[in-house]
């Protein structure tokens, strides 16, 4: 039994990769592709569930790939924090997969195989799992590269002008952060002679503090780019909105969180203590405030959501910067909450786009009457995001603010203030979407369809030769108007509804989840269980 469970740690990485291979082989049969993808991710969810249980009751689960000892080979570790991330991310990925299957059926028909999409999506899932499970820096790098390489394909899917334009920026920024990561790994290896987390944990303590700080800064910089932390977030709001809805949703839910995961893991395990605390706190505060100010200024649903994504990364970073048990607990809880909520909101944005042909607030209206279920699917996660009691967003923010108040330093208090302000402004941004897209009737003075491509930020684009965007929007708008009364396709609405339900479930089970997060935080701060689990075999 033990042996099988040990190998289960490998399952979240290997099963999606196998599935991707099968999907490629079955390139001509849409049905086989769909079944293989669903089965693969379903198995991963099951494996993640078992890992979650085992990690909570039996301590961190480890597996050394190929039987090499941990110091030399690759080992995968599922401790409480990793398992929680794993299960939340895989559930979300599965839902997005179902949504994208629904969308694929709607757009291309039941028979058309999407030869690239499913395999890439599965590889992305494998990369995310690998990053969450890896117990050494280099394998973390490989996990990042797997998920980034597949994200490059997904973000430029179809190769339209708009996607190539925004994808290029995303890809270049990611490349830079990848080489930075590689550079940090080289430097870490030169300084310590290992890349294994457990060994690094003790060897960093022996280094001169100056060298440790440099290495810490290099790693932080790398992960901050991935996590879209201020001032390294500028690539995100421009590159996410142009991708297809399921792609944006899974990116928003997972990719930045992988960066946050890496920051949390390295800060607690490799660099305990409050070495760069002031820097992290400032980064957290500025990420929160600047991000949400960006959201307030936008007039497109997807762009507003992208900026709230940036802004709420600040909350998690705030918890990490506090570094106390309560702070880490809050951060862990908030990551789990935010993955589900943000993904749901982006899926809803996709449904809005399907229903109305646009996500521009100037041209939306009256959706509450036209699509009541869609409104509920938006409303619940949205106020959850803003942190209205009793939802999980409120509880996560509460824990983080308590951690900030417990700490009596002035900067922590400033952080709490920033958190409150950000929460309020999130509510404002959300209310703006709600009022303009859902509540108020579609205005008489709204520009008609023929003027569609002169929205606030398309004129500049059309001068750059992105005429394709405009015409496409025109076409889809006309198409949407034709079937004004048509219902949302079940294949797309179902998974979104389920995810919205999951966000509510997180609220209902907030007690157990919070105590689990606390146990995870204790384990992270203690460090010994993780180190022993990795090295004792």
């Amino acid at each position: 039994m033990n042996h099988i469970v040990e190998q289960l740690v490998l399952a979240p990485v290997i099963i999606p990769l196998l599935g991707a291979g099968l999907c490629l082989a079955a390139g001509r049969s849409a049905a086989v592709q769909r079944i293989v993808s669903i089965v693969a991710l379903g198995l991963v969810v099951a494996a993640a569930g078992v890992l979650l249980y085992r990690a909570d009751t039996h301590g961190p689960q480890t597996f050394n790939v190929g039987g090499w000892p941990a110091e030399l080979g690759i080992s995968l570790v599922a401790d409480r924090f990793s398992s929680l991330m794993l299960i939340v991310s895989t559930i979300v990925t599965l839902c997005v997969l179902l949504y994208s299957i629904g969308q694929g059926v709607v757009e291309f028909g039941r028979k058309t195989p999407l030869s690239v999409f499913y395999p890439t999506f599965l590889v992305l899932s494998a990369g995310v799992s690998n990053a969450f499970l890896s117990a050494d820096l280099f394998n973390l790098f490989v996990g990042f590269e797997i998920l980034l390489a597949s994200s490059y394909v997904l973000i430029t899917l179809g190769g339209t002008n708009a996607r190539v334009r925004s994808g290029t920026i995303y890809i270049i920024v990611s490349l830079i952060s990848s080489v930075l990561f590689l550079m940090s790994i080289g430097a870490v290896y030169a300084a310590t002679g290992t890349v294994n987390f457990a060994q690094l944990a003790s060897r960093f303590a022996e280094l001169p503090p100056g060298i440790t700080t440099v290495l810490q800064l290099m790693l932080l910089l790398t992960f901050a780019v991935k996590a879209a932390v201020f001032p390294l977030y500028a690539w995100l709001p421009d590159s996410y909105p142009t991708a297809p809805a399921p792609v944006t949703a899974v990116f928003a839910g997972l990719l930045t969180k992988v960066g946050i995961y890496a920051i949390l893991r390295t800060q607690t395990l490799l660099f305990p203590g409050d070495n760069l605390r002031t820097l992290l706190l400032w980064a957290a505060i500025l990420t929160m405030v600047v991000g949400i100010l960006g959201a307030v200024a936008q007039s497109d649903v997807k762009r507003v959501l992208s900026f709230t994504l940036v802004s709420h990364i600040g909350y998690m970073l705030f918890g990490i910067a506090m570094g106390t048990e309560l702070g880490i607990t809050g951060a862990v809880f908030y990551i789990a909450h935010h993955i589900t909520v943000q993904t749901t909101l982006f899926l809803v944005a996709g449904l809005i786009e399907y229903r109305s042909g646009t996500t521009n607030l100037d041209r939306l209206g009256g959706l509450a009457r036209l699509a009541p279920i869609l409104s509920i699917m938006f409303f619940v996660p949205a106020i959850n995001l803003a942190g209205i009691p009793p939802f999980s967003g409120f509880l996560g923010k509460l824990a983080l603010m308590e951690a900030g108040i417990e700490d009596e330093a002035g900067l922590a208090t400033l952080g709490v203030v920033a958190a409150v302000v950000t929460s309020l402004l999130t509510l404002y941004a959300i209310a703006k979407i709600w009022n303009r897209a859902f509540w108020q009737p579609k205005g008489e003075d709204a520009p008609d369809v023929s003027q569609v491509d002169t929205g606030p930020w398309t004129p500049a684009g059309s001068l750059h030769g992105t005429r394709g965007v405009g015409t496409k929007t025109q076409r889809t708008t006309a198409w949407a108007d034709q079937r004004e009364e048509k219902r949302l396709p079940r294949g797309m609405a179902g998974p979104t509804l389920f995810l919205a339900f999951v966000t509510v479930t997180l609220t209902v089970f907030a007690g157990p989840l919070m105590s689990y997060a606390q146990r995870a935080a204790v384990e992270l701060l203690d460090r010994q269980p993780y180190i022993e689990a990795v090295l004792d075999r």
Partner: protein
Amino acid sequence: MSPNLILVIVVGVMVGSGVILVLERSLTRILVGFVLIGNGLNVLFLVASGPAGRAPLIDVGEGPMSDPLPQAMALTAIVITLGVTAFGLALAYRAYQLTGTDDVQDDLEDDFIRRRAERDEVSTTFDEALPDEALPDEDYLDNDDVGVAADAETSVGEERRR
């Protein structure tokens, strides 16, 4: 461990030239820069692995072995760089197909804000530079056209946003 100075200089030169290329506008140059940095970092791994020894095979030859781990890492990094570069080149070609150039384009919003700023500037100078009895010379006429057009556009844009 004292690192090999020549290798360190090689790393510095390669990464430095790579950074300069990455700062270019053309995607192809950026990719060449990326490849240079990537290869420079592979050399960095050689520096990190300490003094060179014999091939890392057990029971073959005598003397101290090279550290095999950085070699494995460098190999992995080479493969990753290769794959990503191939994708990047395809992307550059696609961008070239679509726009006739592989230049990295500006962020749409930045562009929009800049244009608005430019327009506002034109319209304010136009308002200030509008003496009632001024004789319309050629420059002035030009300004006039631009100002009116820009004003109209701005107000239309603002209406939409509302």
